[in-house]
């Protein structure tokens, strides 16, 4: 890393110390540390995961970005690369894994499916986009994105990390943002605990309509 990247301007360094000390801000050093060692979680859902593996393999080699250490345990991972179609049956596990990840943590939606449902959006077992449950940092369109597109997305993530500041990031703030995502559960259909009141109201409304309809028939 070149001197200029870390050195933040605005401070004068005495001549005799030039080249010996580096003055930087906490943010810069913090961001540098994070951007250079984003460990992804070893976690593949569907076709996109194969391109993710290809990107990890020799030809594209994500190790050049410090991203080669795929961790099977969420506790050791910094980034969740959601690579593939998210299904209703799988989403409780995904949310649980995300909650178990230590902060700072990032989510990258790889491919059309993870970004917004993809070609299977209309299916009855498909969640139309992981951003319904998790805060997504980078969206990578494509079906599947080529490994190079994936690496381009990773660079985008690094750019985002570079712009962050300790005082601003989500996870050091008090309040609603740091609350874990409630884990959805499987009832007659997928139930998102955050939407229970709406579901209840809508279902009651439907029941009332049905009752009214049957009355008019009678």
């Amino acid at each position: 890393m070149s001197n200029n990247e870390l050195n933040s301007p605005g401070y004068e360094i005495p001549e005799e110390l030039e080249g010996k000390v580096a003055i930087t801000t906490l943010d810069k050093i913090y961001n540098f540390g994070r951007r250079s060692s984003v460990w992804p979680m070893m976690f593949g859902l569907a076709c996109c995961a194969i391109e993710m593996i290809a990107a990890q393999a020799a030809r594209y080699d994500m190790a050049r970005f410090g991203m080669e250490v795929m961790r099977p345990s969420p506790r050791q991972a910094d980034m969740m690369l959601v690579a593939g179609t998210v299904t209703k049956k799988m989403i409780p596990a995904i949310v649980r894994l995300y909650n178990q990840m230590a902060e700072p943590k990032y989510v990258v939606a790889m491919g059309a499916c993870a970004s917004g449902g993809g070609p299977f959006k209309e299916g009855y077992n498909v969640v139309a986009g992981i951003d319904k449950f998790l805060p997504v940092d980078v969206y990578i369109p494509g079906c599947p994105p080529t490994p190079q597109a994936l690496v381009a997305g990773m660079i985008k993530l690094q750019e985002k990390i570079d712009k962050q500041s300790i005082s601003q990031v989500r996870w050091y703030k008090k309040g609603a943002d740091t609350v874990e995502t409630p884990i959805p559960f499987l009832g007659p259909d997928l139930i998102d605990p955050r939407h229970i009141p709406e579901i209840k109201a809508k279902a009651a409304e439907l029941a009332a309509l049905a009752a009214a309809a049957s009355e008019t028939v009678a």
Partner: protein
Amino acid sequence: MYGYGKGILKGLGVTLKRFVESYLEDLNWIGKKYSAEKTAFHSSKNQRGTFTIEYPEQKLPTPEEFRFVPFLVYDEGESGKKEIRCTSCGICAKACPPQCIWIVRTTDPSTGRPVPQPAEFYIDADICMNCGFCAEYCPFDAIKMDHDYEIASYGRNLLNKERLMKSASYYASIRPLNNAREVEARRAKEAAKAAKAG
């Protein structure tokens, strides 16, 4: 057991050879680390040594037929006016498997008749499966598959008409052979038409 471990050694021999090769091979490319030549060599049958393409400094060439998200082609008319080729015939929207194309046809407000131009054109890139059917069946060469894959973003990607429009010269640059073929076909058609009229 006699000879136990021979198989492992044999296998390790392979890895050792590869290991040494990767350093020797690198010597051939000193100063040409990111060159197109090296990329080509590494995708050929003679590839040996390091296999890595150091994206983004070095990029794999995109083959002509490569398809990513579609775009709409416009011709540059006089005074740089963008003349979109699409006639909003709707064939691409009908052929699209996940049905991620939305087209609003333009109507002439005075007559109420449709004008061959899309008023709105949307492609939901978060549904698009990059299948290429739209480009394959468009009768006006108006929608084509893009080569630009570096479009990761911080939000969802619903592409509207403005985002989708790219110039015919850009198209000619990414797909020269296809473009030449299509230009020729259009010219032949024009000529046939003229001959008929004349």
